[in-house]
């Protein structure tokens, strides 16, 4: 009868299924806990036992009430905190939309905006602000994205039909390389934020992620696809429309630090690690010594953090806040964040050995407290003997030559 109504052929419901299980059982002292005497057909309880049971019953009720009250208070507090947070986000949205974004050039560097920026950009304007802050030095247009995507599709088609060698205009990059790269993209997409279920096969942004990564391999065949990129593209897709996400993606990867890492330029990567160690020793000398003693080199954790811009190791909301400031302050902030993490967990890390440190740092606690985290980053000094990040890096480049 039900099925006739809906006109869908599904397995019939058993009557049992139609009864809601009492899953959200709450110890409501008045309803759920009832003290009853023995049924009339059995001998009555002795007075002593009845008294004992009454006492136990009353204790249970008191406990249940206490629990209820505590739960209710906890819920109320959570709700209040949520309201407060939502209100502050709401106010921030207004400021961003009405004051900052219309006057971007003049306002983006003011102290007031920097402070608001540090608090985290509200999700509804985040994409816009990132785009503006990253810029479009490469002058990529939506049309260029379409062209790159069309080329990528062409290549996928010829690969899937097992067609003859694709004539590639970009000499030096063999079809086999490209094929491997395409396989890698497919594999990585399903591993990108798997618990969000957004990018997996059949998920709403699976095709978008695939398109952006494919288009990039056609836009920059010299770089191609490198693991870690799928996370960066995914975070951008969460905040921007497809073509704008591609523009931000390409420009972001074009920054010197990202280019060094994604092209796996070992010399430059070592320079970055060395510069990082200068500030590590300066800010956290004890932990630095502990790491040295355990032969824990920065590549062990920094590679993961830099390649995915923290989106894999940090809880996503925190990673996005790191991105907020990274888009504004550039590569220096990535290393400052790294030091902030080490500082926040200094006490725990000092007690750990090599393996545990490595494991801990590549998967940071889910419940990492955001305020403490950003306070810790703010406390990091990015000056070493009067030299700033860029100067230290430059010096090291010379040393390496």
């Amino acid at each position, binding site marked *: 009868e039900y099925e006739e109504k809906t006109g869908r052929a599904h397995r019939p419901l058993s009557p049992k299924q139609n009864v809601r299980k009492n899953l959200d059982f709450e110890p409501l002292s008045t309803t759920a806990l009832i003290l009853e005497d023995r049924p009339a057909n059995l001998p009555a309880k002795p007075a002593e036992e009845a008294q004992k049971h009454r006492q136990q019953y009353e204790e249970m009720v008191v406990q249940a009430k206490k629990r209820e009250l505590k739960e209710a208070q906890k819920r109320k507090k959570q709700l209040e905190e949520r309201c407060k947070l*939502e209100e502050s986000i709401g106010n921030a949205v207004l400021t961003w939309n009405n004051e900052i974004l219309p006057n971007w050039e003049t306002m983006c560097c003011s102290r007031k905006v920097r402070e608001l920026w540090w608090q985290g950009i509200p999700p509804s304007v985040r994409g816009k602000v990132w785009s503006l802050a990253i810029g479009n030095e490469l002058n990529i247009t939506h049309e260029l994205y379409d062209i790159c995507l069309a080329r990528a599709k062409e290549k996928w088609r010829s690969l899937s039909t097992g067609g003859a060698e694709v004539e590639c205009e970009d000499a030096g990059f063999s079809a086999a390389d490209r094929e491997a790269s395409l396989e890698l993209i497919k594999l990585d997409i399903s591993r990108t934020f798997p618990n969000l279920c*957004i990018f997996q096969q059949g998920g709403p942004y699976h095709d978008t992620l695939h398109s952006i990564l494919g288009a990039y391999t056609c836009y920059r065949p010299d770089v191609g696809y490198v693991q870690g990129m799928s996370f960066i593209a995914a975070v951008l897709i969460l905040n921007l429309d497809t073509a704008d996400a591609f523009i931000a993606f390409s420009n972001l990867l074009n920054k010197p630090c990202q280019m060094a890492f994604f092209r796996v330029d070992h010399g430059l990567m070592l320079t970055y690690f060395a510069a990082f160690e200068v500030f590590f020793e300066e800010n956290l000398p004890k932990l630095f010594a502990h790491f040295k003693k355990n032969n824990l080199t920065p590549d062990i954790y920094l590679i993961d953090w830099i390649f995915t811009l923290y989106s894999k190791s940090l809880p996503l909301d925190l990673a996005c806040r790191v991105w907020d400031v990274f888009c504004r302050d550039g590569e220096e902030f990535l290393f400052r964040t790294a030091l902030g993490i080490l500082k926040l967990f200094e006490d725990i890390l000092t007690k750990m050995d090599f393996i545990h440190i490595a494991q801990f740092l590549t998967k940071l606690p889910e419940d990492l407290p955001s305020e403490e985290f950003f306070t810790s980053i703010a406390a990091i000094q990015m000056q070493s003997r009067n030299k700033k990040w860029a100067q230290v890096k430059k010096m090291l480049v010379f040393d390496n030559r």
Partner: protein
Amino acid sequence: MGSAEEDYNFVFKVVLIGESGVGKTNLLSRFTRNEFNHDSRTTIGVEFSTRTILVGDAVVKAQIWDTAGLERYRAITSAYYRGAVGALVVFDITKHQTYDVVDRWLKELYDHAEASIVVMLVGNKTDLAQAREVPMEEAKMFADNNGLLFVETSALDSTNVEQAFETILKEIFHKVQKQKQRSSQGNTVSLASESPESTTLAQTEKRPCCVAL
């Protein structure tokens, strides 16, 4: 672009919002798979299902998004609401608290979604009528005053679930049709209309398959 067949094929993105535990995931599974899960866990991230229905003589594909973690994962809010043309704001008729916060959900919705989005208020769990805390008239009045569609459902015994989704999809469909008429009167080339409102709705029209794997 624009064969007669394509003109009548639509993909509508509809989002489910509301407090944790009001039955969003079960409404989704009842509508898309005719299933109800007693032991459903808290949704982590996004659940995502589609079902195709006929509206008049047009084939409409409903792409329904369900999430629990909006308050836990602020990072995905923007993606969640982007491109949505319909929203079901769900509360539990047996828990007044879930109804009290409906206006907060509406605020968040209007902060992120297009103003033209079609919104339906849904009072779920009518099978628990004996424990009702939110009178139907009260919710109905709230919906009327705020220009929302309104329905009461039970994902458990499937009362009105089908109707709820059909009603909102029809409403969206009519809105799109009106918009199309308007834009064709203005002699604009069907899809690439300049006005932001019609762009969003136009985007919902079925595009050729994007990726050939």
